[in-house]
């Protein structure tokens, strides 16, 4: 079932603050094309970015059919927590990553919380 869907998904997408994006781009995940709807696979978000914009971008990245993994800064994921938590499809995999200013908190991670809930140990 997932095999066909996974085949075409080859690139990573990233939503985060400027430093995170810069780092990811240095690693080489960036891809800029002229194809409409798939111009950029990264989005710089600051603390001023409205939750609607975050939501729209999140939606865009999760509906694109070539993205295998979506990286999102945890403090941004917190803003749109409901949507992140309710996204349960296997593709793309959503990874919450720490940013420079916001250390990683495993308690907030949607997947880790699911793990905790399933095994009832925290």
């Amino acid at each position, binding site marked *: 079932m997932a095999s066909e869907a996974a085949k075409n998904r080859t*690139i990573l997408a990233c939503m985060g603050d400027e430093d995170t994006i*810069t780092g990811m781009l*240095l690693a*080489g995940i960036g891809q*800029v094309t002229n194809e409409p709807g798939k111009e950029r696979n990264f989005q710089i978000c600051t603390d001023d970015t409205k939750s609607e914009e975050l939501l729209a971008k999140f939606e865009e990245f999760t509906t694109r059919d070539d993205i295998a993994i979506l990286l999102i800064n945890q403090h941004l994921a917190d803003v749109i927590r409901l949507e992140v938590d309710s996204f*349960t499809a296997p593709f793309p995999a959503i990874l919450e990553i720490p*940013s420079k200013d916001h250390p990683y908190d495993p308690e907030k991670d949607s997947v*880790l919380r699911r793990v905790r809930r399933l095994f009832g140990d925290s």
Partner: protein
Amino acid sequence: MKIMKPISRALRRPEQVFPTRMTLGVMKGKLKGAQTGHSLLKRKSEALTKRFRDITKRIDDAKRKMGRVMQTAAFSLAEVSYATGGNIGFQVQESISNNARFKVKARQENVSGVYLPQFEADINESINDFRMTGLGRGGQQVQRAREVYSKAVETLVDLASLQTAFVILDDVIKVTNRRVNAIEHVIIPRTENTIAYINSELDELDREEFYRLKKVQEKKQIATAAADAEMAAKKLREEAERLNELEKHETEDVEKLVVKSEEDKEDKGEADQEKTVDTTELVAETEGDVIF
């Protein structure tokens, strides 16, 4: 603990089937199949759960590791901005080409019939968008940051495969467990109930058949008895008729004889007459002796 909702009795009610021996055979086959399927699915569920537990453990570790790795990466980026003496973010963003250097390949892994994707980092070394970045100052730091971030993203890719496997396995285990429970608590009881229903119905038919045969036998006996009686009666009647007939003939003969003898009497005269009187008296004497 989970509170199980009681399963409605209606679900376990026997199916609407025609109670015949053939249906009984079909139902027995179905029960057998359900039991085999149940044990197979249960084993599948167990295998998946084992894998699932393994993965959750690894996710937990990987997430913590990611926290450390990302911290190191952020530090190397800080080094870059210190060395270059400014923010390179803009420059980096502007030099992105239309083909990513860092891509992922999805490999399939089969765990008891479930395909789990395994992402693999697929780095195309020939693509380097940042040749010019840090050309003036801090080129070394930029290269270092690149390597560190590449390593970090590889960790993230590993984590992503674990996470995807987690999501898919979670789903499949739920479905499998639902099937196991459905077979265990609905299909098997229902088939058993159907078999019991068919058996009871067949027994009922057997009893009915037996009673019917008994009745038929009884009727037959009565009929034969009646026929025998009639036959006997008929025989008697026939006998009687025959006797009657015979008597008739005899009387005719007697009459003839009488006629003849009367003709003779005329010749013999009175002597004979006295003799007959004697014989009648004799008969009367013997009749008096008979006790009824």
